[in-house]
Structure formats: structure tokens, C-alpha cells
């Protein structure tokens, strides 16, 4: 391994780069960060389509609870007897939809793709710190996906305890059908998944801290890297906690311990477990679970920062504030988990503490939102599909974030807890915002991934169908939640006061179906462009970051010969005095004398002197021309 990637990098990455690779080592067990990024992306897209399909299935049940769809029985058999989704299967659908979307798509698919692609590229490194660990990371992830999907092929069905797998449903195999083999497979899958994320995360952090190109100090890093770096730190500190929670859960399930279980009677049988506390699981779970929200969101914030700045042809507004906001979110993410547990009988004083820490997150979030808007303000905006998705991301971040203020308030949360208001909130701020961040990244970096361009018109169609679809699906849910409609109920129309919401559910389901069909435009565009898209130029968006200085064709080690040197921050767009509206990070100040500003030299007296002399020598000539 090390002989390929580290011992002789110059030989391998230079003119002798065409060494023999087998199909297996190039496409399957690849240790190249670019190939691993593609593997993560394509697996993530496949999982997203699968989870989206699950959501359409349960939306059918919610919209037409009394209608029969015989075709469902053809495909789903006993899970849709008589053409109606069974209650057990409904719970499995929402559980696996949530699990796949949160973990497999928006954690692995998003971070896995863009951390792998961009960390070495934007930092000027040949590859990750440990390409072998990186490869393992993908294969653990892939195996986790297979195990999770395989739970649809066991007789008792997939896990059904919700994506948070609270005990006792998750800890007592006889509780409901989904608590049996499906839950075991869920736990195996998630253990593999955590191994994948920790291996990947360690690599991302280590690469950022150790393998930056010459001149790339931390304050010259693009915001994408800052976001991916802090995300990896959050993951490293929180995923191991879930391991501990899951270990205890496995012992409760399979060995008869009582960490989480106590005083239970299941199907007429008194269980022997005594003295356990299900609330303990919630503490351990949400110590990961809440940071997980930011693991999902922060990469999307980073990608959008880059895309908005590039396509506004303006420096990002408040670069330092953007970084400090990310750091603030990172720290706060660890001290707010209790807001998921306001109704567990928590001491009101403790609830008050969690409420305050939660509401403080609004500060860095607002800083980021205003900075995005200020970057767009009077920019020379290019509405590429990536830019539309980036703006869409900001829109969801704001509209979903606002309802966080309501839910973070413990007094209001008592009424809103476990209603559709919560579903609406997190699908906008975490689900839609992150998926839009991811899609913005896919459209923007597609040329870097595959050397070809995606079709713009299909991109616009995809954007508008998805953007409108997401709002039409999730916005009405707020009102249902305020009226007290609970989430995860199979047939809430059994309660007369909720019957009036059936028409809204029909509307939401139609919106979901149209938005899902809109994804066909993306899938067609994505897969056909890999082969038939217009060939990309080296730097199609006129971007400053280092990845666009590499060749369109991928080579091992990214740059032939020596690694690039960095001279400036990544946001020198439309700098007055320069002949182009962008200056790549590899352009030294000596080549841009006409546009240099005093603060560019960061207190370097010698450089300032040279600049002054140049200005003095050139001023008379310029003045003469003016005369």
C-alpha cells in the first residue's frame, strides 16, 4: 500500500503515472481518493432513491388510508395484504427511510463524497493520510448498506422502532415483528457504518492538519474544507458514544442484561429484566444524535459557501465569521442533546439549561444566513444549477431554522413534541437543506468528478420540481403539527378531530410523487452525463481553489511533479485592478501587482515596500495616460 501511495510519489504521479492497474484495484478496491469519492456518491444516490421510494409507499397509506392498491400486494406480498400497507410494515418504512436518509445518504453520501474529493484536492495533497483506511471506510459503508437493505428480505421484516431505535421496542426481540431479526440487522449495519465513519473521519482530520500544500495555512483554506474538517471532528467525538449505546443495547437484546429494560410485560409474559433505564439510552443516543444533525448540515453549509461565492463572483462575506460560526456550531452541538428529551420527565431546571444552549445556536446560524445573503447582494450572479441549489439550501436553512426556535423552547415543545411540526422542521432544516447542499455540490463538482458537464436545462427542471415539491410537502405539515397530529401514526384518521387533515395529506402525497418524479431528471442527467456530457474544461466555473488547477483527466497523486504552492485566500473574485474576475490561489502577488491591497501582505513589511515601490514607479505613467 505505502509503496503505491507514499514511498515513491513523484515516480508514480509524474511522467511514469501509467502503471498497470487491474480492474479490481482501479474500480473496486481503489485507494485513490477520487475513485472513493465516486463510489460514495453513487452508493449514496442509490440509497437515496431507495429511501425516497420507501417514503412514497408510506405517503400512499397516509393519503388514502382506506383505499386498496392491488399492485402493492404483487410486490410486497404479506406486507400489503389486500393492497394496503400493513401497520408493522408502515413502521418499518418510516424507520428505514429515516435511517437511510440521515446516515447513509446525508452522512456517508455527503461527507464521504465531498470530503474524499475535496480535502486532498483543495488542500494540495496527493491523497488522504491513509488511503488504505479510506478504502476500508468505503467498504464498511457498502457492507452496511447491503446489510440494511437485506433486512427487507427476512420474514419478520426490517427494524421498526423508528430511526432513534429507543428501547424497549429495540431491546425486546418479541415486542413487535420489527424488533426481531430486522433490528439485529439494523444494529449490525449501524456498527459497520460507524466503523466506516470513524475511519473516514480520522483520515479527513489528519489530512487537513498534516498534508496541506506549502502556503496553505488554516486561514487560507476554503470554507468547504473548514466545514468538512469540523464535521469530521464532531463525528469522531460522537459516533463512539453511539457504539457504547449500541453495545449495551445488544447485551440487553441478546444476553439478558438490564441496562435499559425494567418491569415489562410483553404479550402476556413478564420479562425478567429489572432496574434498567430506557432514558439512559436516550441520553447516549442523543449525545450522538444531535451532533449528527450538524454532521449532516455542516458539509452542506461549506459546499454552498464555495458555490455562492464563486457564482456571485464576489468574495464570501465575512470569511472569519463563517469559520467562527462553524466552530461555534461544532461546540454547541455537544451541549444541546437534552432538547430531544424535554418530555422524559427531565428536571425543569435542566430543561431550561438545554433550552438556552439550544437557542444560542440561532446566533451562529443567523450569522451564516446573513453572510450568504450579503455575499449574494449586488453580486454578478450566475444562475447555474449548482447556484440555484445553493440558494435553495439557504432558503431551507432559514425557513426550517426558524421553527427550531419554537421547538427549542421547552414550554412549547411539550405541545409540539412528536407531532408533524417536528417532522416539518427537521425535513426543511436538515433534510432539504442538506440534500440541496449535496446536489449543489454534485452539479458544481461534476466536471471535476467525471471530466464532463451536466445538462443545464435538466438541472433547472430538477431544481424547480424539487424546490417547489419540498416546500409543498413539508410546509403544510407545520399546521398539522400545531393541531396536534402525531408523527409515526399508521391511521391517525381514526381520531375524528384529525379527519379534516386527510385532504392535506392527499395534497402532500401528490406533491411528494411529483417531486420524486422530478428526481428522474436528475438521475438521467447524472448517469448519462458521465458518458455523454459535454467535455469539461479545466476550470469551467472560473474558480480559485486548487482542485481546478489539476488536469481534467485524473492521475494518481493529482498533480504531475511538485505539489502546488498557495499564495492567497480562495475568495479573490472580482478584485479591482485585476484583468480577470478571479485569481486562483496559486497566483503569487508578484503577478498581480495592479490589484494587490495592503492587507494582502499580512504585515510582511518587505512585500509592502515592494508593492509601494511598484505603485510609485507605475503611477506617473498611468497619470500621463489619463491626461
Amino acid at each position, binding site marked *: 500500500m505505502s509503496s503505491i501511495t507514499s514511498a515513491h510519489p513523484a515516480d508514480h504521479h509524474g511522467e511514469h503515472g501509467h502503471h498497470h492497474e487491474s480492474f479490481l484495484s482501479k474500480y473496486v478496491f481503489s485507494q485513490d481518493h477520487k475513485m472513493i469519492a465516486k463510489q460514495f456518491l453513487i452508493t449514496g444516490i442509490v440509497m437515496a432513491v431507495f429511501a425516497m421510494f420507501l417514503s412514497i409507499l408510506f405517503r400512499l397509506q397516509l393519503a388514502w388510508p382506506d383505499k386498496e392498491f392491488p399492485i402493492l400486494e404483487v410486490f410486497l406480498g404479506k406486507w400489503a395484504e389486500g393492497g394496503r400497507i400493513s401497520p408493522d410494515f408502515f413502521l418499518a418504512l418510516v424507520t428505514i427511510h429515516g435511517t437511510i436518509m440521515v446516515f447513509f445518504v446525508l452522512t456517508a453520501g455527503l461527507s464521504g463524497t465531498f470530503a474524499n474529493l475535496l480535502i486532498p484536492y483543495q488542500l494540495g495533497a496527493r491523497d488522504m493520510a491513509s488511503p488504505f483506511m479510506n478504502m476500508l471506510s468505503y467498504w464498511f459503508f457498502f457492507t452496511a448498506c447491503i446489510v440494511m437493505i437485506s433486512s427487507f428480505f427476512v420474514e419478520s421484516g426490517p427494524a421498526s422502532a423508528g430511526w432513534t431505535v429507543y428501547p424497549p421496542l429495540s431491546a425486546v426481540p418479541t415486542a413487535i415483528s420489527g424488533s426481531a431479526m430486522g433490528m439485529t440487522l439494523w444494529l449490525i449495519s449501524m456498527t459497520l457504518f460507524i466503523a466506516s465513519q470513524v475511519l473516514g473521519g480520522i483520515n479527513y482530520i489528519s489530512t487537513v492538519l498534516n498534508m496541506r500544500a506549502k502556503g496553505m495555512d488554516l486561514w487560507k483554506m476554503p470554507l468547504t474544507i473548514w466545514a468538512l474538517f469540523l464535521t469530521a471532528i464532531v463525528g469522531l467525538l460522537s459516533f463512539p458514544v453511539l457504539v*457504547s449505546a449500541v453495545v449495551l443495547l445488544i447485551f440487553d437484546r441478546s*444476553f439478558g442484561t438490564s441496562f435499559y429494560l425494567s418491569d415489562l410485560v410483553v404479550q402476556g409474559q413478564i420479562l425478567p429484566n429489572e432496574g434498567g433505564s430506557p432514558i439512559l439510552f436516550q441520553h447516549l443516543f442523543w*449525545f450522538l444524535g444531535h451532533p449528527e444533525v450538524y454532521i449532516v448540515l455542516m458539509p452542506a453549509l461549506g459546499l454552498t459557501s464555495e458555490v455562492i461565492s464563486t457564482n456571485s463572483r464576489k468574495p464570501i462575506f465575512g470569511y472569519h465569521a463563517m469559520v467562527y460560526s462553524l466552530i461555534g456550531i461544532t461546540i454547541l452541538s455537544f451541549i444541546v442533546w437534552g432538547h430531544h428529551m424535554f418530555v422524559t420527565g427531565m428536571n425543569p431546571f435542566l430543561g431550561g439549561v438545554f433550552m438556552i444552549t439550544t437557542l444560542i445556536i440561532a446566533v451562529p446560524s443567523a450569522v451564516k444566513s446573513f453572510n450568504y445573503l450579503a455575499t449574494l447582494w449586488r453580486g454578478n450572479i450566475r444562475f447555474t444549477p449548482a447556484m440555484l441549489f445553493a440558494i435553495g439550501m439557504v432558503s431551507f436553512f432559514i425557513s426550517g431554522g426558524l421553527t427550531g426556535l419554537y421547538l427549542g423552547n421547552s414550554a412549547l415543545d411539550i405541545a409540539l413534541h412528536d407531532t408533524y411540526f417536528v417532522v416539518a422542521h427537521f425535513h426543511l432544516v436538515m433534510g432539504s437543506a442538506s440534500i440541496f447542499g449535496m446536489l449543489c455540490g454534485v452539479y458544481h463538482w461534476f466536471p471535476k468528478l467525471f471530466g464532463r458537464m451536466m445538462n443545464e436545462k435538466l438541472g433547472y427542471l430538477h431544481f424547480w420540481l424539487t424546490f417547489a415539491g419540498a416546500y409543498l410537502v413539508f410546509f403544510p405539515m407545520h399546521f398539522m403539527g400545531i393541531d396536534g397530529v402525531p408523527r409515526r401514526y399508521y391511521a391517525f384518521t381514526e381520531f375524528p378531530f384529525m379527519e379534516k387533515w386527510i385532504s392535506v395529506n392527499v395534497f402532500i402525497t401528490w406533491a411528494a410523487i411529483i417531486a420524486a418524479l422530478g428526481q428522474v431528471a436528475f438521475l438521467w442527467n447524472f448517469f448519462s452525463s458521465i458518458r455523454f456530457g459535454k467535455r469539461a474544461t479545466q476550470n469551467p466555473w472560473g474558480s480559485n481553489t486548487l482542485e481546478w488547477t489539476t488536469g481534467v483527466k485524473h492521475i494518481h497523486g493529482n498533480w504531475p511533479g511538485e505539489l502546488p504552492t498557495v499564495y492567497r485566500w480562495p475568495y479573490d473574485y472580482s478584485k479591482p485592478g485585476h484583468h480577470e474576475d478571479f485569481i486562483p490561489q496559486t497566483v503569487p502577488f508578484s503577478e498581480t501587482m495592479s490589484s494587490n491591497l495592503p492587507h494582502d501582505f499580512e504585515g510582511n513589511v518587505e512585500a509592502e515596500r515592494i508593492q509601494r515601490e511598484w505603485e510609485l514607479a507605475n503611477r506617473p505613467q498611468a497619470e500621463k495616460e489619463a491626461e
Partner: protein
Amino acid sequence: MARYTQDKEELTEQKAKKFNLWLGMIGMFMMFAALSSGFIVYTAGGVDKGIKTLLPEAFIYSTVLIVLSSLTMQLAYVAARKTAFGRQKLLLMATIVLGLGFFAMQVHAWGVLSGRGVVFVNPNASQSFVYIFTGMHLAHIIAGILVLVRALAGRIRNIDQVRNVFRMDLAALFWHFLGILWIYIYVFLLLNQ
């Protein structure tokens, strides 16, 4: 110049890999920190909770064994740096034997505990936690012994000195970490017994 660049890149990658190990250790520590906080939250749940027994003496012996093994590991690393390969091999083997001794002593301690009725499947899960802490630590010890065996195999296969020292460096770091982790667990349990 090219040669210089190449070596520098190799050195950077080695540094990054060692850093990976540090990060991995932080992750492992977080797992035990979570268990510790889980233990505290659970034990605070009622007066009937808690370890409610004295920890077996075997834990003292296992602590001595793991501290000794850290010492032999460090000496093996120094020997590797000084190219004293015979001594490196011998000390590595001693470390592995001491590691196995630690493993056996922990299993013996489980026997002592269950002999007193402090069993794993227990309505007072504070006592189950003792098995979880020591068991998860032993899982890491197995990984540590595999790392030591790999370092020994490298020495026997006579890999080049740069790789030999690098492997020993990482193995020593990880093994010391496992020792410190055990001392943390032991002190934590002692304070709560």
C-alpha cells in the same frame, strides 16, 4: 531536489498516519467516556444501584502486568531505534506474553466476581457495567496484541529499518494508551466501588 521532495512527502505521510492513531485513540477514549457517564447516570438512579462489592485483587495483578508490559514495549522500541534487533525481538515477545497474562488475569477476575454472585446478567446493571468496561478494554487488548505480533513479524521478516522503527513507534504508542486506559478504568471503578 526531487529526492529531497520525495522524502519530505514520505515523512509528511508518516506523520499523518501517526496522527491518525492519536485521533483513533481519542475516539476509543470517547467510547469509554460514554460508558463512564452512562454508569454515573444509571448508578444515580437509585440507592439499590452501584457496584456494592470490592473489586477483586486480580485487578491489582493485572495492573502490574500491563505496567510492566509498557516498560518492555518502550525498551523494545529503544532497541529498535538502536538497531539492536535481537533485543527488540526478545522484548517484543516479552510484551506479548505480559499482554496475554493481563488478558488471563482479567478473565480470572471475572471468575472471582461471578463466584461472589456479582454476575453479568444482573438487575443491578452497575455490576454489569464492570464486565462491560473490562470486556471492551479486553477487545482493545486483542487488537493491541495483533499490532504487537505484526511488529514482531516485520522484525522477523527483516523489513527495512525506517518501516521497522515506524511500526514500533505506532505499536508502542497504542500499547501505552491501552495501559493508561486500563488505569483510568480501574481508578474509575475503584472510586465507585
